[in-house]
């Protein structure tokens, strides 16, 4: 039984690449394009890991992350933040709201896959 991964990003081409990579590794994938949809999907899709973009319309990645961490039922969900913003302050903020890792764009696909696997305990 494959683990579930939620991809939350508003950049269509990046979503296409992430979806391809995760499906290729055998994960079950759901794609959302903004923060609101991401929170909704956490409830009904029940992902093991979220690839969460920071700069999203409506609700930002930071806020999504914080909301997830506020819910005790969702403590097990691993969160990898993805962002084109790579300043220290932004990385620190991402970790502070409860992300498990912070990956700056552009990223190495191999590193990202390794990180996902490690986090899912494979």
């Amino acid at each position, binding site marked *: 039984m494959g683990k579930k991964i939620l991809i939350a990003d*508003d*950049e*269509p*081409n*990046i979503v*296409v*690449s*992430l979806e*391809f*990579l995760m499906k*290729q590794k055998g994960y079950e994938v759901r794609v959302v*394009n*903004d923060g609101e949809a991401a929170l909704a999907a956490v409830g009904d899709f029940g992902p093991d890991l979220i690839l969460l973009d920071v*700069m999203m*319309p*409506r609700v930002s990645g930071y806020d999504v992350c914080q909301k997830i961490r506020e819910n005790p039922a969702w403590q097990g969900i691993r969160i990898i933040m993805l962002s*084109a*913003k*790579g*300043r220290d302050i932004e990385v620190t903020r991402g970790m502070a709201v409860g992300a498990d890792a912070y990956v*700056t*764009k*552009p*990223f*190495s*696909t*191999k590193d990202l896959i390794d990180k996902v696997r490690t986090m899912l305990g494979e």
Partner: protein
Amino acid sequence: MLHTWVIIPVSLAYLGVLFAIAYWGDQRADRGRSIIANPYIYSLSLGVYATAWTFYGSVGRAAADGVGFLPIYLGPTLMMALWWLVIRKIIRISKANRITSLADFISSRYGKSALLAGLVTIIAVIGVVPYIALQLKAISHSFTILAQYPDVVLPAQRVAPPVQADTAFWLALVLATFTILFGTRHLDASERHEGLVAAIAFESLVKLVAFLAVGVFVTWGIYHGLPDIFERAAAHAKLAPLLAPLGGPAGSYASWAWLTVLSMLAIMFLPRQFQIAVVENVNENHLGKAIWLFPLYMLAMNLFVVPVAFGGVLHFSGAGVDPDTFVLTLPMAEKQEALALLVFLGGLSAATGMVIVETIALSTMVCNDLVMPVLLRMKSMRLAERRNLTGLLLGIRRGAIVAVVLLGYLYFRLAGEAYALVAIGLISFAAVAQFAPATIGGIYWKGATRAGALAGLAAGFVVWLHTLLLPSFAKSGWLPIGYLQDGPFGIALLRPYALFGLEGLNDITHAMLWSMVANIGCYVAVSVLSRQSVAEQTQAARFVDVFRRTGGALDAHPWKGTASLPDLKALLARFLGPERAEAAVIDYAGRRGYGSPDDVPADAGLVHFAETELAGAIGGASARIMVASTVHEDALSVDEVRTMLDEASQVIAYSHELTQKSQALIAATNELRAANERLQELDRLKDDFISTVTHELRTPLTSIRAFSEILHDNPELDAAEREKFLTIVIQESERLTRLINQVLDLAKLESGRAEWQVARIDLKAVIEDSIVTTGQLFRARNVALESRLPADLPFVHADRDRVVQVLINLLSNAAKFVLADAGHVVVALSRRPGALRVDVIDNGPGIAAADQQVIFEKFRQAGDTMTEKPRGTGLGLPISRQIIEHLGGRLWVTSRPGKGATFSFELPVADAAAVAAAAATHRT
């Protein structure tokens, strides 16, 4: 019944109260708790201006002239407005130089000239003695009238009682005694008399209350209010003409104006006014309140003048009662015993106040500026050998007081009957007005010389003698009346009331005109022609620049010679008494920072100090003589003084320069701080911009890298997928390129380094080109593009390529945001005043009002940007707006959500734009 045995005790009791107040005031002053150190007492004491002349005389004048009495009180009111400038300066100068009288002031200004001081004193005494006589006359008359109560019987004219039975004589003696007691109690270096001022302020209150009481009684007690009096007056044959405006009995406008000027000068230069306003002033800030309080007092004092005058004429119609006595005779005729007595006291207070202060002022002048200089020069007096002269000084003062009061009495006996009260007062006013040019010129014009002041004063005084005083003698019968009618020695041209043939003016206007012409003319002409001595130059600067002086190093005393401290101390002791001299020297040593008075060097500063101290006691001119006789002085050459002054002015210039430099430094610091803040703000904006640009660059790069790696790692991908991924890589590369180009473009536009090829262009052709260029975009999404481009429109002045850039941006935005297949876009060109307008109208989703500004900001896109299409860079609209604005036009959007959007811009037509565009080209 009001017998003399009632009036005399009441009067004496009133004087007793004055004694008590003055005594109390002096006691308080000695204990350092001044009762006069407040602006209200100061303002009230200025009320010494209102004498018996005001109290009785203005009603007399109003009965004869209507509002003709008013200028005498309008003048001071106007002058008060100038006081803050003029009197404040005079007070400051007087305090700094220990000046104690008007004569001292004028002589000090012109190099401490003893001659000038003497001349001023003589003019003041001759000018003011008639005025004192007037007060004595007023009191003795009112006493005689009141003693007849309840019959209104005027004293018989020209039958004077023997001196020992004359109330005026005894009154004169009582006043002289009072003045001696409180005016010369001790020799005060500052010549201030606190108790006396308190008593004068009290007298001002008494006379005001008395006059208001009569006014109220006549207006509402005898008649039925003001309307009643004025109605009756209008119906009265003698009074009706008085209600006419100026030009009638009240005198011409010219005489009104001259009387106003005359009393403006009198309020400043009457010796008693100078004494109260300047010498007795405790704190120059009191002026601030006096400026409005004193005019208020004058107003209250004049409120009932006309009602009482009219009431009197109506009441005594034809009964031969002198209008000058109405204030007293009206209450008497109505059997108001108490009120009549109060009026008498009011008149008494008005007269005594004036006589006392005037006499003190004159006695100071006579002693310091007339008697002392003569005594000091008389070797036979051996004054220089007497150890203590304070007793002598006090003796001279006291003698001068008695002499002045008795002079007044003498004048009253000899000439007082010939003239109405007002006429005598005005003659005095005209005399003291002669001090105005030398004083006011002296404090504002450094070039005025001693010779000029002497010439002006002498000329003005001679004209005054000839046109006012001698005619008054002629009218009294002491001079042949031919002097008046045919001129002196029968020279018609010199007739006193028609000098040089000038006729048609009243005597006062005529005299003022000629005396002022002579006075100012001689003063200015001789000042310009003569040279100042060293002492004059020093004093001129000290007076004119009094507000600029701050003491200390800048207060240079041009003096050279040898002096010794014991000599100077002995000199001070002789005039001030040993204790006061010792105290003064200790005080001086303390201020100069020497521990013991014996350490004080006998330099120019000490000599100046001694002279100033002495000036307070014996006047500036006498002090100069005494100091010169005590120390050995070397004559200063003009060159030496110039060197001293040059050094002082160099120090001033240097410190001025320093002040300017430090101000410039503060200004520069502020500018730098502001510039730094601006730079920091710009730096922050640049940081934000770079952060945003980086983010925008990383996004396409992310896709490119991800798909390149996927394609690299998965050679087994099928052709369709491979094709799809490669297309994305190409699209994102194009996006990256576009972004880089636009960022560079925007940077160039914003820094003003962009190249502009501005020319006359046909906007219609440009739009058609842009439509062709973007045609593929519209066809690909099946969006209709309609153009409405009228022909025969004027050219615009613009850069063709840049306008194409804007149009492509607007058209491709429209193509992107409308719905595929259902989209409809219109490009319309139209004419506006002085401009052409382009509208790009779409039927897309529209833009919310909140976003309509946001879309013109860099990297900002409206609403949900998640579309199927490659996203814009977020720079297109900001760049377009920059371009249009640079070309002298404007770019804006109108839209309602759901109703599509219209992007519009205007460009000026070629003719109108030629100038602006040329300037723009020049700039770039």
